[in-house]
């Protein structure tokens, strides 16, 4: 099964299989909108909030997603699998190091 993914931030839409994570689905189609980091649930840059739709998640670093956030629909896109059409708000960001530059 594949589903429609809508990114509220930039209006990007793409189809994603329920068997692959949403970030990989986006990357494979060359689409943009969710920042791509480690792809392993560890760094948190691909953090999204699911506004609408059925989904499941795999293990995500607690340093990036608290239990409370998880209950409120926050997830890392690299650990997020669609079980239906999804509407997502991208909340992760690239917090740059080298602060002075």
């Amino acid at each position, binding site marked *: 099964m594949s589903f429609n993914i809508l990114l509220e931030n930039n209006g990007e839409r793409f189809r994603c299989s329920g068997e692959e994570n949403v970030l990989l689905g986006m990357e494979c189609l060359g689409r943009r909108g969710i*920042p*791509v*980091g*480690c*792809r*392993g*649930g*560890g*760094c948190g*840059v691909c953090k999204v909030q699911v506004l609408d739709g059925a989904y499941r998640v795999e*293990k995500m*670093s*607690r*340093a*990036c997603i608290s239990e409370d956030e998880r209950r409120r629909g926050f997830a890392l896109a690299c650990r997020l699998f669609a079980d239906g059409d999804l509407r997502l708000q991208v909340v992760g*960001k*690239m*917090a*740059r*190091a*080298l*602060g*002075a*530059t």
Partner: protein
Amino acid sequence: MALTGVLRPGHVALRVMDMAKAVWHYTEVLGLIEVARDAQGRVFLKAWDEHDHHSVVLRETDEAGIDYMGFRVDSPATLARLAKEIELSGLATELSWVAAGEHPGTGQRFRFTTPTGHVIELYAEKDKVGNGMPTLNPEVWPDGLRGMAPSRFDHCLLYGDDIDNTIKLFIDVLGFTLTEKVVAGPDQMIIAAFLTCSNKPHDVAFIRHPVKGKLHHASFILESWGEVLKAADIITKRRVSHDIGPTRHGITRGETIYFFDPSGNRNEVFSGGYISYPDRPMLTWTDDEVGRAIFYHDRELNESFLSVVT
């Protein structure tokens, strides 16, 4: 002996979120050798040419990142002296001794936290288990190597806030040399520091970052640029999360590729780099040239290098 005091990075302890996947990555992909597991479920590994018992420790928990990095010092007397000097310096916090045997085959470790929030250990004793070849009339590499098969754990790049006092701790107390730095702004503030305790371009490096205690990468050394290219093949063949490379750094001159373990901790394998003696003049890079300093070919920084840490 001419190389004294702190000898080398001896181990890095990483947090992983799925031990089975992590062990697969660090053995089949990276090509380390599993040497032990303990009652806590930690897994200990080494690179093939390391004689010491282990250099990588994996601990399963619910977040990624680095627990600590350990450096081997030349003797128990040096360990005792440095422990005292670290305490007197006032530059480190949370000082403690970890009992001998807490790591298998390892003597007592002195543990402290740097001003950047990184836990660092010093130790003088770790069992020599060998590199799979005799020390009398050896071969040049052992049989049965898998994956990228780096010869040893080389360094870590750590991200944290107070790199000024951390540099001071490593230079003034631990005897490291600053080989290269990146400076920014009218005050020439140091935003990246590359520190060595040996003849290598770096044994540990720090980059200024708003959050304490972050890991940018743990790095392992290969023999040649050809092996770096083969590592790139393995990254694709094993469908490993790729970051950037193969490319070359201006800083250290290393030939490099970056990728992520299954929990998102960044790994590097690299080759090359210059030889650094303590009297080698320090190199300085300015922030307007930082792209070339980090990625010599692309000449621009990617967002991931600055932002993706565990």
